[in-house]
């Protein structure tokens, strides 16, 4: 890290809430004119579920990610300031990171850029996690219980959430572009300021507020950027586009967002405490934040693991039949019973080893809870049958057995056989595995880099690496 005594202030440009959502190109010129010292942003989150970690794929499409990278890499090449990107490829697993690396290398080839690229890998082997478990280095977070070896074996990929320290190492090594695996969003955005010796409380707080880009401003969307300056007493933050505003309410309110505790934020290596933070409206568009405190704690990294043990097949029908619409709940309960019996009689499925759920969209598809007596009935219902089993073959087998019942079942016996509205042929859709997060645990480490592997690519000197 740089010498603390040299520190005066540091300016960070956060171009968007997450790489690939779509930077507004006109904002880049405005932001770069303010002479930022670094560009920092995240490229993912767990919010969209475990599939992206389990499969090692991005949620965003390649063209969108490439367009955003082209914009910030052009700014990087011109200004010579580093780019720091966390949680590459949505989940930050090794596959997600390599996917992002390949896009960056493709742009280097196409544009003739020659940056030094640092890759920070934070995926963990099951063997190492089992060893940490045996050494008593793993603790559980509520609401899950203790970790077991079986939980580890269930995971397709496991990542550890990085703090800023691996980014310090990459900056020390002279990286122009740092692509991180799974990282704390505030850590990536705060890393450059911390590396420059900025005070920890304001740096982390600025990182937290900026993690969704312009969402913390009147722009109210992560497609917009924010710009902040950390100084000795705090930080000043404003939107990139002067058409928007940062206000005391918008900035202080951001600690509420996707965060279960609005006062104390647990991060790798410590806690950010904003209980006594002061917010001051400096100009129409800019807010100053002071009084944020960082409490160092014994270093832990949060573990995330994704499993895909069960498989689903779905069928969807649209219903406008007035007999069904008059009594949707009766129809639902009868359907679930009949499909369950059909699965048992027409397949090799064993009771308890499969699950059938019918979701009546338009009635109670989202809540699943029977509506109150007297609730107005809908004009249409979209019914989705979700069949879950231990293998895709079995889920598919059950769906095929249930198919004629699902779209032909009358609400009462003896009625003319209805045919509800299928949209597709075949009607049953194999959906693949049910991806779930398995771990909610932290691992104690000696320091923030113990579980992280760094790889450097010097695109100027090592051409064969570029083509790799």
């Amino acid at each position, binding site marked *: 890290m740089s010498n603390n005594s040299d520190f005066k202030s540091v300016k960070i440009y956060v171009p968007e809430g997450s790489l690939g959502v779509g930077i507004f190109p006109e904002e880049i010129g405005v932001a770069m004119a303010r002479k930022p010292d670094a560009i920092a942003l995240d490229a993912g989150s*767990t919010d969209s*579920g*475990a599939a992206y970690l389990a499969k090692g794929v991005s949620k965003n499409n390649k063209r969108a990610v490439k367009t955003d990278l082209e914009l910030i890499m052009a700014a990087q090449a011109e200004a010579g300031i580093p780019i720091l990107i966390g949680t590459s490829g949505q989940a930050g697993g090794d596959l997600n990171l390599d996917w992002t690396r390949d896009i960056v290398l493709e742009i280097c080839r196409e544009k003739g850029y020659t940056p030094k690229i640092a890759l920070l890998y934070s995926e963990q082997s099951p063997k190492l996690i089992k060893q940490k478990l045996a050494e008593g280095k793993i603790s559980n977070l509520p609401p899950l219980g203790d970790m077991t070896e079986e939980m580890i074996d269930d995971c397709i990929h496991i990542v550890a959430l990085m703090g800023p320290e691996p980014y310090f190492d990459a900056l020390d090594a002279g990286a122009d572009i740092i692509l991180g695996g799974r990282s704390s969003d505030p850590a990536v955005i705060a890393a450059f300021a911390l590396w420059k010796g900025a005070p920890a409380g304001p740096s982390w707080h600025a990182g937290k507020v900026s993690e969704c880009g312009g969402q913390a401003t009147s722009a109210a969307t992560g497609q917009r950027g924010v710009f902040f300056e950390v100084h000795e007493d705090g930080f000043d933050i404003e939107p990139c586009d002067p058409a928007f505003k940062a206000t005391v*309410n918008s900035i202080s309110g951001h600690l*509420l967002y996707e965060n*279960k505790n609005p*006062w104390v934020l647990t991060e790798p290596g410590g806690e950010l405490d904003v209980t006594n933070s002061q917010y001051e409206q400096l100009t129409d568009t800019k807010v100053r934040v002071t009084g944020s405190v960082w409490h160092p704690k014994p270093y832990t990294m949060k573990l995330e693991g994704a499993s895909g043990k069960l498989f689903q097949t779905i069928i969807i029908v649209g219903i406008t039949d007035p007999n069904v619409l008059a009594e949707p709940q009766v129809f639902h309960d009868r359907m679930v019973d009949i499909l369950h019996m059909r699965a048992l009689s027409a397949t090799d499925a064993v009771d308890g080893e499969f*699950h059938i759920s019918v979701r009546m969209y338009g009635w109670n598809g*989202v809540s699943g809870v029977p509506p109150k007596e007297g609730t107005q009935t809908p004009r249409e219902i979209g019914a989705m049958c979700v069949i879950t089993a231990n293998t895709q073959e079995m889920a598919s087998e059950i769906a095929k057995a249930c198919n004629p019942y699902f779209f032909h079942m009358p609400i009462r016996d003896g009625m003319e056989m209805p045919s509800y509205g299928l949209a597709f042929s075949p009607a049953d859709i194999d959906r693949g595995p*049910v991806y779930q997060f398995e771990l909610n645990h932290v691992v104690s480490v000696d320091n923030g880099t113990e579980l992280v592997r760094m790889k450097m690519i010097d695109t100027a000197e090592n051409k064969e690496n570029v083509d790799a």
Partner: protein
Amino acid sequence: MPKVREVCRTVRSKVAGPFWVTMDLMFDSQESYDLYSQSPALNAEAIGNVYSVDPAEVMHFPVPKLKVLKISYPRKTPQGGVEERDLHSGQQYTYILDLELS
């Protein structure tokens, strides 16, 4: 007795990691916040009852400067499970809009 929807300008819910849900009740005035943010209709037992979770795990965070009451609770089933119906938990707030506040 007003309903939640009548004294809040915004109510929202979202996942806070794969195992928790957090809700923000943004009251429409200082008066509403003072009168209703501590209503028994929003206490741990009541919220636990609406979402079928243990009241001991329901957390309340009053944020008076913003006239916001934040309530966090563990997800009944982990995100993306067999019976998932609201992956981002973005619709969960709707089930408290009609709670009557005293």
